[in-house]
């Protein structure tokens, strides 16, 4: 068995046995949900229902119920799309990239992070759909054989690349997540006593036996999927950034976008993981598994990616000056000093300035502060996309077409609605799915568990 230096901080606190882990994770599924869950679920589903209503209203009336206009043809719709896709980056990064780098600490968080990814990508995918003027024709973006002769999708269009990138990412993430769930479903199946639950989890676990061969294959598949998923982490948001980078609009037409978008995505994804985990840790009493160490590690990722994003912002500014292009230069001056200056400075302070506070160990290990910061970062990253999209469009080449964008209640409703739907899905996940990869966590119990480490240390002394 892999052994770990004693001075490394334990990843599982307290004296936990394998049975404890099973009980801690499966317990909430077996038992009645706490009152808080019902409260949250009611709230989330109400918001989700309102958002769904807004979406139906949008589809029945037309895109005009949003605040878009002849100059700003995208605003909250694509802002929300990119924001959700970005959030959807953390899960795969945690489960795939950290798996390849053998980061054991990922095991406590990868399940919920992946779930978050899946749900975030679903939310993201909603927007390109509903933002279409004729959503009932949306299947035309798929390269389907048809009766129109040579009529085919336009492979030059970054929007089409988006379709491929997002659908690939979604499929791979979903498979990866589900494969990981199989042994845990089997554990639940074996533990629960209610026949209905047993049946359902039995189906979900695909007849997992837990023999050595199954485990070997499980690990092999995980590794292969991690290998496939890793490039996707980088490709998805690169492709999303191409929507902007390949255009001719000043403020969009920027070669720095792919890495800038990817690091921004990881940045916001980790922030969202923090938001969700900190709540879940508290509500589901997972303090032993999701420790301060985990939080700190994630905060470190946030500082690093946040700083990369900051460098990207400054590089953009520099290039807009250095290039000498009149329109580029204006686009950035307008961002910072024009009518939408507040959104630019909201973005700058949330994304660049505030994460730097995490250099202080005291702050990055402070859970309340981390929670606060995770919200700030997500606000900042929403503004980043808003700034890129709206401030570039509202004053581009033709001063005659310059105008302002004003959101309507439907813009707001749809955005809130996606948060509601996302929360609903996440709450369902937390209630019915194992929120930790319990079998994986068990694999590190004897190496990184606190009590085992202490035992090992005592043993060593003797």
């Amino acid at each position: 068995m892999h052994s770990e230096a004693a001075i490394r901080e334990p990843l599982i606190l307290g004296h936990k046995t394998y049975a404890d882990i099973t009980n801690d994770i499966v317990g909430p599924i077996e038992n009645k949900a706490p009152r808080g869950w019902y409260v949250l679920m009611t709230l989330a589903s109400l918001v989700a229902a309102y958002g769904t209503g807004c979406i139906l209203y949008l589809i029945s009336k037309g895109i005009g119920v949003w605040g878009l206009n002849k100059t700003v043809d995208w605003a909250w719709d694509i802002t929300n799309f990119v924001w959700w896709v970005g959030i959807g980056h953390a899960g795969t990064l945690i489960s795939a990239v950290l798996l390849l780098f053998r980061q054991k600490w990922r095991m406590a968080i990868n399940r919920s992070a992946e779930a978050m990814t899946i749900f975030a990508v679903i939310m993201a995918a909603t927007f390109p759909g509903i933002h279409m003027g004729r959503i009932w024709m949306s299947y035309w973006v798929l390269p389907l054989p048809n009766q129109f002769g040579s009529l085919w999708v336009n492979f030059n269009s970054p929007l089409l690349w988006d379709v491929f990138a997002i659908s690939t990412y979604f499929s791979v993430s979903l498979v990866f997540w589900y494969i990981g769930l199989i042994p845990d479903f089997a554990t639940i199946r074996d533990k629960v006593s209610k026949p209905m639950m047993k049946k359902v989890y039995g189906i979900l676990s695909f007849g997992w036996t837990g023999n050595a061969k199954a485990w070997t294959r499980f690990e092999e598949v995980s590794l292969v999927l991690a290998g496939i998923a890793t490039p996707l982490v980088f490709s998805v948001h690169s492709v999303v950034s191409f929507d902007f980078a390949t255009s001719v609009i000043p403020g969009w037409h920027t070669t720095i976008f792919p890495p800038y978008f990817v690091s921004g995505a990881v940045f916001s994804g980790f922030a969202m993981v923090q938001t969700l985990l900190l709540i879940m840790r508290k509500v589901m009493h997972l303090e032993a598994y999701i420790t301060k160490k985990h939080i700190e590690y994630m905060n470190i990722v946030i500082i690093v990616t946040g700083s990369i994003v900051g460098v990207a912002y400054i590089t953009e500014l520099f290039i807009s000056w250095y290039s000498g292009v009149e329109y580029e230069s204006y686009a950035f001056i307008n961002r910072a000093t024009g009518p939408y200056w507040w959104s630019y400075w909201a973005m700058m302070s949330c994304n660049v300035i505030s994460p730097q506070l995490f250099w202080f160990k005291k702050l990055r290990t402070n859970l309340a502060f981390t929670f606060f910061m995770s919200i700030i970062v997500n606000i900042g990253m929403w503004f980043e996309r808003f700034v890129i999209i709206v401030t570039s469009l509202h004053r581009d080449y033709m001063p005659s077409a310059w105008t302002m964008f004003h959101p309507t209640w439907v813009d707001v409703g749809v955005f809130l609605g996606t948060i509601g739907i996302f929360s609903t899905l996440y709450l369902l996940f937390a209630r019915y799915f194992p929120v930790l990869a319990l079998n994986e966590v068990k694999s590190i119990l004897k190496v990184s568990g606190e009590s085992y480490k202490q035992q090992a240390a005592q043993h060593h002394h003797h």
Partner: protein
Amino acid sequence: MSSTKRYWMDAADLRQDPEAIKARANEFPQDLAIDQVLGDARFQGASTGRRDFLKFLGFSLGAASLAACETPVIKSIPYVNKPEDITPGVANWYASTFYDGQDFASILVKTREGRPIHIKGNPRFGINRNPGLDKGVVNARINSSVLSLYDGERLKGPRQRVEGKLQGTTWADADKAIDAGLTAASAAGKRIVVLTNTIISPSTKAAVAALKAKHATVEHVQYDTISYSGVTNANLKSFGKRVFPSYDFTKADVVVSVDADFLSSWGSTTEYAWQYASRRNPDGAMNRHWQVEARMSITGANADVRIPVKVSELPLAVVALHDAIAGKAGAATVGGGLQIDELKHAADALWAARGKALVVCGSNDEGVQVLVNGINNLLGSYGSTIDLDNHTWFFQGDDAAVAQLVKDMNAGTVGAVLMAGVNPAYSLPNAAEFKAALEKVALTVSFSRYADETASLCGWILPDNHYLESWNDFMPKVGQYALAQPAIARLFDTRSWPGNLVRWSGSPAKWNDFIRQTWQANLAVHGAGMDFTAVWHQSLHDGVLSSPALPATPVAFMGDIAAAGAAAKQAASGAGQWELSLYTTEAIGDGQHANNPWLQEMPDPLAKVTWDNYVCMSFADVRNLGLPDYLGEQSPAGVVSVKLGAAEVKLPVVPSPGQKPGTIAIALGYGRGANGEKVGKAAVTTDHEGVLSPVGRNAYPFTSLRNGTVSYDAVSVEVSATGETYPIAITQTHLTHMDRHSIVKETSLAVYKAGDKDAFNHAHTLAVHEDVNGDGTIDARDRKPVAEFDLWDEHPVEGVGHRWGLSIDLNSCIGCGACITACNSENNIPVVGKDEVRRSREMHWLRLDRYYSSDTKWAEGREAGESKISLYTRMEEPSERPSVFFMPVMCQHCNHAPCETVCPVAATTHSNEGLNQMAYNRCIGTRYCANNCPYKVRRFNWFNYVTEQFAEVNPAWDDLGRMVLNPDVTVRARGVIEKCSLCVQSIQAGKLKAKKEGRPVKDGDIETACSAACGTGAIVFGDLNDKRSMVRGKADSDRSYHMLEEVGVKPNVNYLVKVRNSEEAAHHA
């Protein structure tokens, strides 16, 4: 017997015939041939394949669903005998004439399957024809007039007012009653007044005369809604002729206009527009134009030097001009003129160009106009730039006669009033008095097409035909005749109003016969010996009959300059803190077209405001009053109250660059139907608070009768902020061009004449890594023009087949906006209403960008070391005396179109003729193309604009309004992008026509709607691959540039640098 009832199927059943019972088991008694068929050798090996199966499945499903649908049954009656001239799908054009008392134009009416759908200027005949380009000038009001034909609120038959309520009646009853009424009036010796706008129809005059022959007390009083009495009275005093002269701007090297908006609203604008534009070519003899005015007019925007003065200073400016010129000519001066250096320079230039100079003045004050006549007389304009011999017959109205009429009506000496073409209850300065007077007249008849402000007060409304349903004739000028012919049968039970007069005079002639008779009689006098039938047919075909102009006769000026000077100074006296100038807009004019949604949604060429009138106010005044100086979707305008005597209106304030501080301007022609009168569909709409209210407010109560003529300005009004705000629908919220020289290129004549292309039309180059200049090193000086760079493969359009394109001469564009409405009409552009325009969602495929100059210049500011941020902020501020730049912008049909690459479903593609095409059916509405368009010309259907939601404004919503749609152009549904197609339907039709005739397409065969509407020749369409075409010639000229060339999109639309004649003007200074 059993008690249970038994039923049997047939007799065999009853009998229990065993044979039959056996046979019943076998439904088909004979052996079917199924086995034989299936056993047929030819079918051996055949099977129902998956594809066939799916086809059958699909067919059954489709057939079942179709059968389930209730297909609406639309009964259409096909031609049993096809009329000789009408081929379905092929347009017929009829020559006709538009005249409404303010505009006159010889036009061509396009009809499809018997419906008039489009109007353009007559390219071959008429006074509005630009002979240099073979194009007829029309303005937006004229080409939009086709829509008013299909206004559902037109009266559908005669109406009689009984006990205060309008009710339907029959023509026979009306004829009888009115004949009795007229007879009674004349028998009582009371006057019978035919009150009309200026009648230039010889036949109508003859009809009035015929009525007078029957009833001796008949009298014809003419009244122009926008009065020119001051001008005509002055001509009477100066030259003994009460006429509005013909002006010839082609002969004027120097034009000085004092408040005369002659390109938009003053005089015979359809003539002046082409005349003026023909002298704006920098390669020809370019004129020099001074404009002295208080508000920024379209004419002022075109001027080389614009001198803003207050309204009260305008008469003094005329005095100053007069005195300066009189001084040079050694004639008597008046003294007390306005002391402005620029006016002296203008006078110098006029004097230097005497004989080729022209001064026009928009004032309706007789004294001021006598002074102007004096100036023109001293300059020798009569016989050169002003023609009194071949004068117009326009503007015969007499304000004094109308004022007297109102008094007489009140006094009870008027027995009958018959009104046509006028709306005195709305537009008279003393409208209230008129309304009261109308009550005292026994017989009141209106020939209005609507139950409008005046008609709804009359005893009878006998609706006139729309002019496109009518016969008519015109005499716009001495020796010039024109005909109007119906392009459609009458839609409703209406009559041509002069025909009523003919009928009531006892003549049996129908109106069209009456016109023929009038012409025949006239021809017998003026064209003795000519074959009338031939002349008539030719005139009908051409729309016009003209005889050679009369030779100029010497004029003797007999005006009293001293008295005129005194009158002018009197007009200028009594100035208060605020002065008011009333004007008419390009779109709405005097208000009779206020019900036309195309015109209401056409942005004002300067203010870019739609669906409202407003107070134009200088930025300084706006800020002093603490009102908002930025207007946008969520930035409403501040409301002020304007008071003059008893008249008061509350209107929003639009900050207007170029407006003289201390003077405000308000457009007339708005606020129609304020008391709930049914004046037409779009004149009254639901406002932002959901209340049905008129569009704008009526400003006619601010007019006043002064020295016998109606005055359109007031030197002292009260203006106060009300603290209220009002949403304004504005299509261009930004005012300046931000020194973006790859969009706006403008130079002075001197620089242009110097011939250095780089100085006025600098080409964009990019540094390359090769030794371009051959100096042995590769450095930043090695540059290539942008045109040589390609990211993509070139579309093979250059030199292959056709390559359609437009060339837009910014010097010829006067900013009238006729192209916008022509495009609306040709391409079925939806009208979306004020609220959508306010949200920057107007659908116009063609827009007219208007930029004001700023006092802050980028290059100067940078040299002075000012920061970019501060410069950009200051460049947003327009100059107090801006120069104005008009720029029609439509899809640029880029050969490297950024929209084409980004569409995920290839809904927008490039044609092999250089067109950027839009397949509406394929569009899924991602709007990515619109975002990626650097010119922002793409429009999205945010809603289904052809639904009840837009019923108030969109004519395509109701069955009648829909008749105006061009059947060659798809009406776009919700959720798709649309944009300029370069009138691809016309291109196809033109190509087809040439093909049928077995010849290549000639230059000029095909016109887009905008190029055909542009009588000044600013927009030229053609084949860029045709080296001899006009458009190619322009594209190759030194002035030609592509907007935003450095983006590298390679448009097929080019612009020609605007050249102002300002250098010489400044040189004088």
